[in-house]
């Protein structure tokens, strides 16, 4: 019996998948568990293994094409087996369809077996939002909200019994349709030819999530600077010790200024759990642990892998974790679990000489820290004397639904005190 292979859900946020490359040709034999196809998701390119032994009878989606989840992409069956493509794919996918278990992060007709297994023991998952009563929304409102990446549960409906209707979504997204139309109607200017670049899955996801974040979360920004002179001295000591250890064959990861910022932020989050929280509509979820996401720039976009339980890790473990995640991200080898469950994000553009900047919150988190470069800065010290200090500016973007100004400010005070007196973090 021929089996329809459908586009699998390889990540929680995946809504469509692109065929990067078929690893088998039509007519070629394939074993169960053997890699069949490389699928480009919104996060990474992953191999997808054949759920069954047989022959790849038909490829339905060519490389470079993206299709919605559960769209048939190939047929596997016995060698030379005749099959009715229309019957198999036109609603007749019962042969392969199993339960579409919503709880599984890898829902598909055939349970996929991602090659990338979760790293570590138990990956903490985002607690499911507590829904009190179901959200009433018109079918159209739901569809448009999904397209715009707007969470209907976060919108108060103006229809009967609070039903969310189209106009509520349009108000929320600043009448997205009209904006999109006017953007398309750019006049053509004669002269140098402009280039139209196809939008990758990753770029689509970035666009959708960041738009939703800006629309849903009322942002405000707090900027502060820290004297990192002592911290730099401490870090150089540590790295000097690491170099010595390396000579006698003991490997120890060097630590960067950013690693120390992650350490300090994770400790400060323990002190101020209000910042380590998520807006849930009717409730606010205060996370028990700090899972710190770090923004990693890739040529094709931005990813934010998560350092699990950063608040419980030592500096060298944090440093090792950052190297590992950044390396995998650059090779496109991060598993989907690596992105899930962050509770706070740090974005650092200091290496580009950026003095300070503001970042967009990574939902459902409540805050993101934008870290600038540590630069020699003229400063009036506590004695009123003008001195030159190595100072670093940081801006915290906060979701005002969760974090108030004073709350964010106290978090930053604690963070700065840790950075200025790093020994505090050891006690």
């Amino acid at each position, binding site marked *: 019996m021929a089996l329809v292979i459908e586009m699998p859900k390889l990540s929680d946020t995946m809504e469509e998948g692109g065929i990067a490359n078929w690893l088998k040709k039509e007519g070629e034999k394939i074993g169960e568990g053997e890699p069949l196809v490389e699928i480009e998701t919104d996060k990474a390119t992953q191999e997808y293994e054949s759920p069954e032994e047989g022959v790849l009878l038909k490829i339905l989606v060519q490389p470079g094409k993206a299709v919605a989840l559960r769209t048939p992409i190939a047929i596997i069956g016995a060698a030379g087996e005749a099959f009715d493509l229309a019957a198999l794919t036109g609603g007749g996918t019962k042969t392969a369809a199993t339960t579409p278990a919503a709880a599984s992060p890898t829902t598909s007709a055939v349970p996929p077996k991602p090659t990338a297994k979760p790293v570590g023991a138990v990956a903490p998952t985002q607690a499911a939002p507590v829904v009190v009563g179901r959200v009433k929304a*018109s*079918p*159209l*409102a*739901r*569809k448009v909200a999904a397209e715009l990446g707007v969470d209907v549960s976060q919108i108060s409906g103006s*229809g*009967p019994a609070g039903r969310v*209707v*189209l106009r509520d979504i349009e108000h929320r997204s600043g009448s997205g349709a009209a904006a999109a139309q006017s953007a398309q109607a750019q006049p053509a200017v004669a002269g140098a030819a402009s280039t139209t670049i196809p939008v990758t899955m990753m770029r689509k996801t970035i666009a959708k999530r960041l738009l939703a974040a800006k629309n849903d979360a009322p942002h405000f920004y707090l900027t502060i600077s820290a004297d990192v002179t002592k911290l730099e001295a401490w870090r150089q000591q540590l790295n000097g010790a690491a170099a010595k250890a390396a000579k006698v064959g003991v490997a120890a990861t060097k630590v960067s200024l950013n690693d120390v910022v992650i350490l300090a932020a994770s400790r400060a989050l323990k002190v101020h759990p209000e910042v380590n929280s998520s807006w849930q509509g009717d409730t606010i979820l205060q996370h028990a642990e700090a899972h710190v996401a770090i923004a990693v720039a890739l040529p094709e976009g931005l990813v934010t892998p998560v350092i699990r339980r950063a608040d419980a890790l030592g500096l060298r473990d944090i440093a090792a974790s950052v190297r590992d995640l950044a390396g995998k991200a650059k090779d496109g080898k991060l598993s989907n679990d690596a992105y899930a469950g962050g509770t706070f994000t740090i974005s650092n553009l200091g290496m580009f000489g950026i003095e300070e900047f503001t970042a967009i919150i990574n939902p459902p988190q409540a805050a993101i820290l934008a870290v600038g470069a540590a630069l020699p800065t003229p400063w009036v010290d506590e004695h009123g004397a003008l001195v030159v200090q190595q100072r670093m500016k940081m801006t915290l973007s906060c979701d005002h639904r969760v974090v108030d100004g004073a709350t964010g400010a106290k978090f930053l005070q604690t963070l700065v005190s840790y950075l200025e007196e790093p020994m505090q973090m050891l006690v």
Partner: protein
Amino acid sequence: MALIQFREAIAQAMAEEMARDDRVFLMGEEVAQYNGAYKASKGLLDQFGANRVWDSPISEAGFAGLGVGAAMVGLRPIIEMMTWNFGIQGFDQIVNHAAKMCYMSGGQFNVPIVFRGPNGAAHMLGSQHSQSFDAMLTNVPGMKVISPSTPYDTKGLLKSAIRDNNPVIFLESEMMYGLKGEVPEGEYLIPIGVGDIKRAGEHVTIIAWNKMLHVAMAAAEQLASIGVSAEVLDPRTLQPLDEELIFSSVRKTHRLVIVDEGWDFAATSAQISDRVQKECFDDLDAPVVRVNSLFVPMPYAEDLEHAVLPTAERVVEAVKEVLYVG
């Protein structure tokens, strides 16, 4: 283009088809010497003679059956019901014979017949003479059902109905026989099963046919004055229904109101609503709202009759409901 009455459009369509095909004949109560109870067959007796324009006795079951038999042996009868309230006397012939003969004879007999006459309430005729049979007639497989709203549509569709090789029910209205509309001079046909946008709009689709089309148009005019742009869609044929036109309009406006003179339970509007909720689920911003006659036998009293029938005011209220305003 000539401005002619609805009744003249019917007479023109029948005259042209009778001239074109001598198998076509007309039978019904008072269709010949009296020129039709509503003068919809005016001049036909003079033009075609008593062999082709027959005054029947008051016996709907009899002449409906006669028509079915004539159609089975090769003629193309037009059977006029003085009103469909009387036409129900002939339902056995229509439902059990006309609609089923082709099927039951394994295709040996076609029944190319048109049953036509006014449907729905006129004005103060009481409960037995003020009924819409759209839902009952469209519920029977084997027949086509046409319910036009303008002289132009009537002429083009009646000609198509007469040329069709299957039984066709043609629903008119006493209230519209005097309605004037532009009709071109030359011959034209309107295909069965094709709807028409009578007024284009953006915010809501209003589906209405027969005399309710004019109620919907009046409502659309009132709505325009408060800034609501209503699209008025006339399906013209109820069986088969132009579903694609309906779906495309709803996908554009996202809201649907259906005006249907029939009682609301299991009405034609209920069928349209069901198809739309199935095929346009994700396109709907509000539940489909129907404006039907109230579920009571029609009262004789004028004010009560007015309260039962759909009105432009009720349509405007329904549109406001699906638009979530006022």
